[in-house]
Structures are given as structure tokens and as C-alpha cells.
């Protein structure tokens, strides 16, 4: 018999940082032949299982299938040479099967006494890229397995509900939504593999000129995610989206052993949307210069004082401290901090600030937004959700997990394959009714520095990522990890520094936001949480914060390489080899 799933790790961390996909073609692409038939086969199998399972002593009241196809091409280079290239295509199936009723079903979170249990679907099942019989066979087998798991878990849920004190409001476990029917054509993955190989060589070559750069990698990655979704409410949806990414990462080390990374990411929903070589090479040369400068940059001691966060940094800041705390299911879990649960209608930001999550917009300025989608992973149509209007909290991000006052989904039930959907962020859009130029922001920062008797303020420019904890049994802290930080001295001069991470707690951090700049920037990344990694974006202006706290960044005690780079000694070694002294 199946066992309950292992509980999720206690510490829910969210790191909106770009990571290479572990799974996932141009020459291999088998494309979606018989694609039109996939939804039909899924619907037929769903109906066949539904008929049987709704007649059982513990009937299934809801069933959905989602098949996700990932076609991926990836090439990587380092120091001017190709290091890897691969292509793959795979499809996986997720089954959401519910027994009980929308008011109480098998997905209800179990108390810690029983073992928290999780809403995880269980490992996604591989499913044929082609062919109907294989598809039917996997759908049939997995549905049966999921039903058996569901009745077993439902028994535990019922017992748990009887034994426990009433903690959650009676909002039920699942919202009923309208059926959606839509079908997009399968997008072709357009990967010029040979061209990409030349590009990664070109993009990584300048790093080889520095003897201090110990790792320098570029990856060009193209992925088409095609999803077929059907549910027992009558929804039948097919969507297909392409993602393209150029990612460059390089690492140096300071004399004291501190590891100093720099990275640049370029995302697009089309290959044409990726920057041209000139733009990328300009970024690469800046990276090389930044890395050399970082090695010589002074260390910053722990500091609390005013700072300006660039648009990218403030986007991650809002994602961590605000976005995750507006995810609906976090307002009802007995273990969740529920920071904003009782604050609807209250001011949480300056009134000049508004925040919306909008998966329907696909582009800001010249940059595509990876948090865009048309339907979420529960068959609900994507829509714009204004969460903060003129500083006042109005709404939460909702999956089909109802909370008090918010009984329906607003199209943010998201997940990666193998996970059960929960409310997740999409494109986080920060709007400001009043903005300042960079110079005005800086002047105001310096006034604060002077007022507070400090010697300097900080400017957080590029960031690597961040994470936050929302659980109530752990401190509700957040961290944002910058890679480029400047000290703004009282005389207005700006000086690169190293070794700081931005830390804080959410409500305090909000109360310190003073003003917005007029320079909106996009941060595209991947956010990891309990429903897996999902693509997200932020659009945010730079912001002035009256007080931030920074702590020392992590460091190693590893010395720099003992021998000089081989380039300096190549001729010596060659001559040694040719005279036979190596033997």
C-alpha cells in the first residue's frame, strides 16, 4: 500500500534566482504530432476513470490531468571554449484527484502530530511524447494509484479533523471554478545550436584574459513548455510557451579568500528578443571590469542606515518581503506567519506605491517578462490582481485554496511538474504615483546620512537573489544577496564595496520605504517554493529606504591559486615537455 508522502522541509525557502533547468530539442524534436489528439485522449480517460471512481464508497469528486512537455536545447561554454551541449524532450503527467468534498478533502494539511504530510502530487509520471496507447496506459495506471493514495490520506484527514481543535476558518479546501476551453498551437523551439555554440565561446573568451577569474561560464538555453490540461469540470486547455535565456556567470576571489560572483541574465520569449552580440559583449566586458574592481574593493562592516536599491534589487526585495506573504494559502496554515492576514484595508506601503501581479502582460519596455502565462496550473484563466492600491492592502494571490474573504482563485495556482499547485507569484509590478530622478534620490539619501550622523549610505545595484521564511516557528526574516554594492559618501562620491547581504524583517522593512525612482527595471528569474520552481518577473523602480541592515557576506579561507595561470607559463611547460623532462 502506498505510504503518506514525506513532509516538506521545515524551512520553506524561496530563492528567486536563476538556475539551470535540470531536465529537459531542435534536431531531436519530435514536435507535437498527434498533439490535437492529446486533449481528446485525456478527456476520454478522465471520463472513464471518473465514472468508476465516483461510484466507489469514498467517491472521487474532482479529477484533473496536466501533461507538461519540455523541449530543451542547452549549450555551455567556459573561457572561450565549448563545455557542453545537450538536447532533450520529455513529457510528464500530474494527476490531481480529490475525494471527500470541496469543504473537506484529502489535500487538507495535516497537523504536525500526524506528520505534516504535503500537498505534493508525488513524482510526475513520464508519459509518451507520442502515441495514444501509451498515453492511455499511463493515465489509467496513475489515476488508480492516485485514487488509492487519496482515500488513504482522506482517512487520516478525517481523523485529524476530529482530534484537533478548530483552528482554520471554515473556508473549505477547494474552490469551484468555471470550466475553460482554449487551445494554442504548439510553439516551435527555434534553436540555432551551432550558432549558439559560437556565441558561448565568444561570450566567455574575455574572461580568459584575466588571471583572477576562476570560473566563467555562459549558457544559452531554449525551452518550449507545452501543457495540456483537462479536469472533471469540463476544462480542456492547451498552452505552449517558449523561453530563451542567455546566462553568464563568473567568479573571482579576493586576496582574503572571499568568493565574488557576477552574473548577467537575458531572458526572452523569442530568440529574436535576446540581445545582440554587441550588447552581450558590452555586459561581459563590464563583468570583467567589475570583477577586477571587486577584488580590490574594501569590505563593509555590518551597517544600519539609508540605502538606495536599484530597480532589480527592489524587485527582489518586494518579491521576498511582500510577494511571498500575499500568497493565499499562507494566510491559513497553522504553521504560517500570516503577516498580512488581518491587514486587508490597511496601509502597508506609502500611498504613492501600488503593487499588482499581472501574468497577462508579456513585455515591459524592451524586455519580455517570464512570469507571463494564459492559464494557471489549475485551469484558471490568468488575470491582473492589484494587491496594493495607493499603499493599501486589497487582495491576495489565490490558487483554488480558499481563505476567509477570498473564496475563489484569481489565476495564481502555479507549480512545477510533480508538485501540487499553491498560490505563487507571476509578474510583480510596482507602480509609483510620484517618482524622483536618480540625482534627487541620491540627494535625499545624503540628507538622511547627514541627519543620522552616518559617514555614508549604500547603493545596491546588481543582485544574485534572495530568500525569505514565512513560517511562524522561525524568525520571519529575509535576505537579498547583492553582487554590486556602492558606498555613497557624504561628498557624493560612489565607491564599490564588497561582502554585504541585505537582511531584515518584513513589516519593519516596509515602514522604511521613502520614495521611488523613475528608472523601472525588470528582473526575470525563477522562484523556488513548496510547489517547485516557477518562472517569475518583477518590474520595479529604484527605491530609497531610510534604514536597511546589512550583514557580512559568507567567505572562504581558501587561498588564491598557487601557480600563475598557465598562459603565463605555457612556453616554459611546453619546452619542458619537449625535452622529455616530464617523464
Amino acid at each position, binding site marked *: *500500500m502506498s505510504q503518506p508522502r514525506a513532509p516538506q522541509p521545515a524551512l520553506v525557502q524561496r530563492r528567486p534566482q536563476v538556475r539551470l533547468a535540470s531536465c529537459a*530539442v531542435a*534536431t*531531436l524534436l*519530435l514536435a507535437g504530432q498527434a498533439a490535437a489528439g492529446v486533449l481528446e485522449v485525456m478527456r*476520454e*480517460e478522465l471520463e*472513464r*476513470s471518473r465514472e*468508476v*471512481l465516483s461510484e*466507489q464508497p469514498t467517491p472521487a469528486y474532482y479529477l484533473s490531468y496536466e501533461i507538461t512537455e519540455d523541449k530543451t536545447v542547452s549549450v555551455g561554454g*567556459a*573561457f*572561450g*571554449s*565549448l*563545455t*557542453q*551541449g545537450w*538536447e*532533450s524532450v*520529455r*513529457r510528464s503527467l500530474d494527476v490531481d484527484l480529490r475525494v471527500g468534498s470541496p469543504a473537506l478533502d484529502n489535500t487538507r494539511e495535516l497537523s504536525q502530530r500526524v506528520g505534516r504530510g504535503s500537498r505534493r502530487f508525488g*513524482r510526475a509520471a*513520464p508519459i*509518451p*511524447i*507520442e*502515441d495514444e*496507447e*501509451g*498515453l*492511455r*496506459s*499511463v*493515465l*489509467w*495506471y496513475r489515476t*488508480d494509484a492516485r*485514487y*488509492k493514495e487519496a482515500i488513504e490520506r482522506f482517512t487520516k484527514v478525517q481523523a485529524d479533523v476530529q482530534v484537533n481543535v478548530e483552528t482554520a476558518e471554515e473556508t473549505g479546501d477547494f474552490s469551484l471554478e468555471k470550466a475553460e476551453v482554449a487551445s494554442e498551437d504548439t510553439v516551435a523551439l527555434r534553436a540555432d545550436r551551432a550558432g549558439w555554440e559560437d556565441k558561448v*565561446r565568444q561570450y566567455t573568451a574575455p574572461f*580568459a584574459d584575466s588571471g583572477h577569474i576562476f570560473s566563467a561560464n555562459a549558457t544559452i538555453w531554449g525551452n518550449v513548455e507545452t501543457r495540456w490540461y483537462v479536469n472533471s469540470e469540463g476544462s480542456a486547455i492547451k498552452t505552449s510557451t517558449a523561453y530563451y535565456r542567455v546566462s553568464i556567470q563568473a567568479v573571482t576571489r579576493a586576496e582574503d579568500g572571499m568568493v565574488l560572483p557576477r552574473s548577467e541574465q537575458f531572458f526572452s520569449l523569442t530568440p529574436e528578443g535576446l540581445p545582440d552580440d554587441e550588447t552581450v559583449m558590452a555586459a561581459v566586458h563590464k563583468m570583467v571590469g567589475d570583477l577586477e574592481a571587486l577584488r580590490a574593493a574594501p569590505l563593509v562592516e555590518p551597517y544600519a542606515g539609508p540605502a538606495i536599491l536599484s530597480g532589480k534589487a527592489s524587485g527582489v526585495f518586494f518579491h521576498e518581503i511582500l510577494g511571498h506573504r500575499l500568497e493565499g494559502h499562507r494566510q491559513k496554515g497553522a504553521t504560517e506567519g500570516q503577516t498580512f492576514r488581518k491587514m486587508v484595508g490597511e496601509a502597508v506601503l506609502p500611498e504613492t506605491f501600488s503593487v499588482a501581479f499581472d501574468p497577462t502582460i508579456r513585455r515591459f519596455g524592451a524586455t519580455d517578462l517570464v512570469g507571463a502565462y494564459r492559464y494557471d496550473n489549475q485551469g484558471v484563466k490568468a488575470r491582473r490582481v492589484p494587491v496594493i492600491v495607493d499603499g493599501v492592502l486589497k487582495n491576495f494571490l489565490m490558487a483554488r485554496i480558499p481563505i476567509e474573504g477570498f473564496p475563489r482563485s484569481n489565476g495564481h495556482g502555479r507549480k512545477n511538474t510533480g508538485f501540487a499547485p499553491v498560490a505563487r507569484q507571476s509578474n510583480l509590478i510596482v507602480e509609483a504615483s510620484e517618482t524622483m530622478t536618480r540625482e534627487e534620490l541620491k540627494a535625499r539619501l545624503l540628507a538622511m546620512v547627514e541627519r543620522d550622523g552616518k559617514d555614508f549610505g549604500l547603493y545596491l545595484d546588481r543582485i544574485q537573489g534572495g530568500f525569505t521564511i514565512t513560517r511562524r516557528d522561525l524568525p520571519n526574516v529575509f535576505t537579498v544577496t547583492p553582487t554590486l554594492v556602492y558606498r555613497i559618501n557624504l561628498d557624493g562620491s560612489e565607491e564599490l564595496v564588497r561582502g554585504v547581504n541585505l537582511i531584515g524583517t518584513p513589516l519593519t522593512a516596509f515602514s522604511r520605504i521613502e520614495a521611488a525612482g523613475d528608472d523601472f527595471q525588470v528582473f526575470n528569474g525563477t522562484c523556488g517554493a513548496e510547489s517547485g520552481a516557477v518562472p517569475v518577473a518583477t518590474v520595479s523602480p529604484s527605491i530609497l529606504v531610510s534604514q536597511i541592515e546589512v550583514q557580512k557576506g559568507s567567505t572562504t579561507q*581558501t587561498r588564491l*591559486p*598557487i*601557480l600563475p*595561470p*598557465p*598562459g603565463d*607559463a*605555457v612556453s*616554459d*611547460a*611546453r619546452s*619542458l*615537455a619537449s625535452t622529455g623532462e*616530464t*617523464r
Partner: protein
Amino acid sequence: MNLAIVTRPMLAVVVLVAGVAPVAAPLAEDSVLMRAMRDELARSMAELQLEDAEKPYFLAYRVQERTYGNATASLGGLLSVSEGVNRQLLVELRVGDHSFDNTNFMAAGSAARRPNVATLSVDDDYDTLRRQIWLATDIAYKRALDQLAGKRAALQNQTQVKDVPDFSEMPPHQYDGRTDGQLDTAPARTLARDISTAMRGRAHLSRSEVRVTAYLERTWFVNSEGSEFVRETPYIELHALAAAQAVDGTELEDFVALWAKRWEDLPAPTVLADRVRAMTKRLEQRREAAHIERYAGPVLFEGQAAAELVSQVFGPRLVASRMPTFENPAMQRVSARYRNPFLDKIGSRVLPRFLSVVSDPTIEAHDGVTLWGRQSVDDDGLPAQRTLLVERGILKTLLSTRVPLAEVPVSTASRWRDAPLPGSLFVTPGRGLADEELREELFALASERGLDHAIIVRRIGSRSARLDWRSGGFGGDGRSSSVEPLIGAYKAFPDGREELIPIAGLSNLSESDFRDIVNVSEATSRHDTGFSPSIDGGATWPVSVIAPALLFEDVSVRRPMANIPTPPLTPHPLSEG
């Protein structure tokens, strides 16, 4: 509902491998990679030294390049495909000297135990390769110094019971196995799809999958003693796996597993498809078969089952891996439990006197079919050699690498990755019985115990052929001792009648039971299997086992003890209409 079942015509698999005879050429003299490896090795040996610390006394680089194409398919449809190329550098750097160096030590922290692996450029670009090798060597050297200091510190308070050197001295050896052969990995897709088609239309199969892995691995090796080699390993692996639920719900699995170095060495697609159909037929028969609750008595292992038994129970004991010194003495005591009992049996009888065992990586083929285990050099760069392991029942030695043990001080040139691995394993009978005679003896032994039947096992599950990795074996808990479940076992009666047993497990059969093998067949058969050097399973590599049928006098066989899942509620999609 009627479903039209379309059978695809089998596509011929194209033969695309060049010849494999090594060409006579100066050892990789023209190879940019080899030159970069040599040059950085020379520079490191000459100059790499932290002030007041020791220089490396040994340095080896092993670069493994893999050009791969993998495909999985089910019921005629591809599940996934992937293709690519990558290169990995493994740095083995030793500080100290042969008698005492930084290795064979397990620090309490995990950082010091990380393998020294780096990704290398697949472009033959000299400067980039040098740079990558330089950085990886630097990390390996610093790590080695940390390990040596940690080991010295730990041993200040411990006395080593046996003073065995850390690394054995061996003469340098060069080998050039370059053929510039190519392995086209594209047929993997066609093959996976076509073979899986043979499992279509079978409503009794709950799940099925065909996995085809194909790659060409090139290894370049150079060490500071002057050893060098270039080796090419073409590899094709095909696993057809299927599962069914018995009428009572018991989960059953079966498989077809094949390895080859060339596509043309695989059986013809039609033959493969027949084998897969025969496998599904076996599963169908097992679904209806009656369980046995418990049996203790004589058991005859034939064919694949004999080879698997050797591979899973006896084989891992023929491998000698050194237990490291642990920084934490408590771990030292725990690790003692995992000591290979055969280390204390060298010179003792471990098999009946009519059996001998040889590991032989030098033999190319058996009965005209390429053997697995054939190797020209091992991963230390030593010339592969035939090793007599058991001579007329007496254990002579164990397979080892250049990491010596008190009991096995010299390498048998058996290193594969980080552990010793047998070449082809020959279990040779000095005398044996004809099949009929062996059966007579089986029934005589059964009769002595008052049994009206005996058990004959023809198939045992394989560690490399599990459909569901999470279940840890066939049908949930079919495992007992360290042997995979019996998936082709029969109650055999003296009148020739046989009754199939759907699944059963062996209780506590261990390597010491092999000493009491009563008799064997005079004929041997060859089976390839995924061999794991660890008795507890783990990564497998194909090894050809050539063994006779083995008759044991007293073996306990029982029904799997796990609970039985209920059969599916909804009928199989093919069972309607």
C-alpha cells in the same frame, strides 16, 4: 469502445561503428588534450608547492568524454530522448609518500571527501584546457594538504593496527586504444520505440518501458609516473521492463537486459521483439500462478539465475576495497561490520573442490559474442590481466586496485572508476553432471527430506533492471537477504511436471553457502548482468558471467512478506471494447 491497435513495422537498426582495432601511432602525440594534460602535469609536479608544505608525489589526470544518446519509450511511443556531449576531468593528487599519504582517510566533515572533478571544454582548445586543469589541480592540491594534515592529527591519538602502505608502486605503462571510431547514438530512439511496440495491446501489463542508453566514452589518462593511455568504450544498453499485477494484486516485474558495444552485436530487431513478447508472456503466466508460502530444501539454479546468484551474492565478495581510517573512531567500529568476510578466507575453501573462478578482462568473446569485462587497461593505467580467484575451491586472491590491503598487497589491475570490478567472470566446473543427472540428484535430495518436489530457479531479478527505482526491488518487498526476487521459479516434480511460482524470495543465502554447493552442470552458459561491487547494491556495470547450473542442498524460499496492493478499480484501457 473499440481501439484500433496499430503495429508498426520494425525498423532495421543501422550499423554505424567503425572497426575497433587499435591503430599503431605515437601515443596521442597529436592530441591537444593530451598535450594540455601532460604540460600542466609537468608544471604541477615541478612547481606546485605551498611554502612549508609537501609537494605532490603523485598526480594523475583522467579525462572522460561522453557523447551520448538516450531514449525511453513505452508501448511504441517515446517517453523521453536526450543527446549531448560532455567532458569531465578527475584529478588524483597525492601528497606524502607511498607508505603514508593523504588518502584512505575519512575526515569528520564532508568537504574534504568531495571528489576532485571538473568540467572540461569539449573544444580541443589548448589554452582553455590548460586553464581548467590548472584550477582543478590547485583545488585538489589544497584539499590533499588538508586531508594529510587531518589524517596525521587523527592518528596522533590512534595506532594503526596494520601498517599497510597507502599506494602501491607499479611500473609505468602506455596504451593507445584510439580508433577514431564513432558511435551513432541516433538508433537509440528507433530501437526504444520499436522494441516497446512489442508490448502493445497487452491488457495485463500495468506498466512497461524500454530504455536505451548509447554512448561512446573516450578516456585520456596521464600520471606523473609516465603512464598514459587513451581508451574508447562504446556502450549500448537496452532494458525492456514490464510490470503486471497478479490476479491477487501481487506486483510482478520482468525484464530483458542486453548490452553491446556495436549496434550490429545486438540481436536483430525481430529477435529482440520476440524476446520481449516472451517476457510479457511469462508475466501473463505468473499472474495466474499459485504462491508458495515457505520451502526449505534443495534448489537448482539454472542459466540466468545461476549467473545472477554469482553476480549478486558471491561476486561482490571477490572484490577487495580498503576501509579508510576514520577521523571519528566510532565510525571505524561501524565500518568494521562491513568488512568483506573473504579477506579472512584467502587460502581457505570457499567453493566445492570441483569449482574454480577466474576474472578475465583479456578475452574478447565467448562463443563468438563480445564479452563484457573486456578491458585493455584499468583506470590506474595498468595492463588488464587474468586473475585466478578461486582454484579448485580455494580462495587465492581478491580483485584490487593500487590501494593495497594487508591481505591483497598488489593490484590486480581491476580498477574501474574508484573500485575494483571483475573482468568477465568464469565459474568453471572441474567436473559436472549432465542436465538429467543433475535433476536426478535434485530429486534424490528432495526425497531424502520427504519432499515430493524440489525448486528450480531459472530467472532472478537484476539490480540494473528495475522499473520502479523507488520500490527497491521487484514487487515491493520481494527482496530477502541481498538477492533480488526469484521471478522464474518452479516447483519441479520427479515426473517432469513443473508449476510456476509467481514470485518468491531467498532467505539468508550468503557467500558461505556456496561452499556447500552439492553439484553443478558440466555445461556452462553465459549471461550479462549489471554487476555492483557492493553487496548492498549501488551503481552497476555490465559483467559477463559464465557459470554452470548450481545445485544447493538447503535453501529457504518464501513468499514475499509485503502487503499486497488491491488490483486497479478501473479496467485497463485496452481491456474494454
